[in-house]
């Protein structure tokens, strides 16, 4: 009997909290000891700099990099287990893949940033009145810039975010200048893993290659989506001029291991030594380091023999 009573009480209390959270007019703010924004739902611009969130939890490595790049690093109290950049971020065991609402709330956040929401994180945060920002993988580079701006506005660093967008734009256009058209007419294969998952030009990463005039061999497989798995014999017969390995982490693939695959030794990129290891993190995150990726590609193109 006691148990049932406790259960009913908990239900009632939960309902009251939810009502409180969704009451947008609640002046005191339902969440956060700092008494900042109390409205749940997607976070908007703070009314004044003092109202900016001071206890941000980031559940996405890309979001973490954006937060620090726009100057909101001091406001971040916890980041997920995959966030490892910039150095010194408060990495925790929080998971961005299977976020645990209670664990997140344990950090008393006044803003939660995440990229995907399979586990109803947003509705949970709504119930307890904690504002959040959802930053899914953008479809293109402009989408990434928009996210930089959005993070800047919500954290009270709109001006720095604007500067950041300008800086990354500058980095990418400088990279295109460095390459100087050396990529025109060359084909490439961007390898995500040894079972030949890759990206097409529809993907965010594929768009960066397109900026250099590079042709993606996977584009003829775009019926299978932006991240198709190619057949080995197709890659060999498509004969790419360049191969970029996004699976070259320690113990991963290398120019040598690619050359040993059956039938791959004759591929132009392998024969001419044009197999390049990319940084795993910069090729999977849509943060400010996309400029670095563009510069890496530019360097590869500029250093190619015969250019």
């Amino acid at each position, binding site marked *: 009997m006691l148990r049932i009573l406790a259960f009913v009480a908990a239900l009632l209390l939960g309902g009251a909290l939810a009502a409180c959270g969704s009451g947008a007019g609640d002046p005191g703010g339902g969440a956060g000891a700092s008494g900042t924004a109390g409205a749940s739902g997607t976070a908007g611009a703070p009314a004044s700099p003092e109202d900016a969130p001071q206890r941000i939890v980031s559940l996405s490595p890309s979001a973490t990099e954006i937060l620090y790049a726009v100057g909101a690093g001091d406001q971040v109290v916890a980041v997920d287990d995959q966030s490892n950049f910039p150095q010194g971020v408060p990495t925790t065991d929080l998971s961005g893949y299977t976020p645990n609402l209670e664990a997140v709330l344990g950090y008393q956040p006044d803003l939660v940033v995440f990229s995907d929401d399979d586990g109803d994180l947003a509705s949970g945060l709504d119930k307890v009145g904690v504002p959040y920002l959802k930053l899914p993988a953008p479809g293109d580079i402009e989408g990434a810039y928009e996210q930089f701006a959005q993070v800047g506005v919500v954290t009270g660093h709109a001006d720095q975010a604007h500067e950041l967008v300008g800086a990354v734009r500058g980095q990418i256009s400088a990279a295109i200048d460095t390459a100087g058209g050396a990529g025109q007419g060359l084909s490439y294969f961007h390898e995500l893993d040894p079972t030949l998952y890759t990206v097409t030009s529809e993907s965010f990463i594929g768009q960066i290659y397109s900026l250099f005039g590079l042709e993606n061999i996977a584009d003829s497989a775009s019926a299978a989506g932006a991240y198709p798995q190619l*057949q080995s014999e197709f890659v*060999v017969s498509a004969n790419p001029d360049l191969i970029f390995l996004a699976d070259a982490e320690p113990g991963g693939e290398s120019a040598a291991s690619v050359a040993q695959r059956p039938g791959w*030794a004759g591929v132009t990129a392998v024969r001419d030594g044009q197999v390049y290891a990319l940084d795993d993190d910069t090729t999977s995150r849509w943060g400010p380091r996309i400029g670095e990726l563009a510069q890496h590609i530019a360097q590869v193109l500029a250093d190619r023999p015969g250019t």
Partner: protein
Amino acid sequence: MIGAAIAVTAAILLMATLVGASGLSPGAVLAELADALPLVHVDSGLSAQQHAILWQIRLPRVVLGALVGATLAVAGAAYQGVFRNPLADPYLLGVSSGAGLGATVMIIAGASGAGMGSLGVPVAAFAGGIVAVAATYLLGRSVGGGRGEVVIILAGVAVAAFANAAQTFVQQRYQDTLQSVYSWLLGRLSTDGWSDVTLVLPYVAVTIVVILLFRRTLDVMSVGDVEAASLGIRPARVRLLLVAVATLGTAAVVSVSGLIGFVGIVVPHAVRLVAGPGHRLLLPLSVLAGAAFLVLADVVARTVLSPAELPIGVVTAAIGAPFFLVVLRRGRGMQ
């Protein structure tokens, strides 16, 4: 009947060799294959690269598909005969789940720098499969008392569920390896050329030969253990041996191809409806039909989204399930 089945299977293997994403003309491929025959010299006109595509990528894939399909099917038929249960297959006995757990652990260990190389995953999958079926067998024996076969199947379900749970738990902890675990779980017949074929060939050969040797014994045992014993057969020993051999073969092929479901149960049932329940026909026909079925499924996997791949496990389930129902309908009509 077996002669006709051999001809059909050979035709399917040849057809599969002619189809591919790299635009080799079937005529050139045929010429190339003819050129490989003794005393025949034909100029196929293939470039060195096309030659490599055919001999190093496509042909090993077709052969591996045939070996994997044959083994899964004959192992399924053997399990069903041994346990006298039409539902017995490598999945229900926990072999595949145990292999999946082993492979997952090794993929994660490899990703965190344990560095076993490409051999680590097959070895771990193999070990996982053996451990799982041993657990199934021992559990079934100790819990089951005298009601052997049914209890062993149920024990297999429990072991498989436990292995799946453990695998999911491990996966959740190491999510950056999800992609590679996932693609292994969906099954794939690709990219390692002849090395995968030579890796599994001894196990496949032993499995098929030993199971076929027992085709008459299984027929006798299907009448009953007492009758079998009166003819000098020791049913418990035969069971243990056949389960061990079928598990060995299944774990070996699953360790290179990933989890490919439905072959071990669909193929023997289809064969049974055409050729009857006798093991003398069922077992060799299952070998051939299994090879043909998986190679055909791989042709679908290679062509539907070409030049992209469709995971073959998806294809075997997608064409296996309706095919199974059609066969069942036909079978009822025949009775």
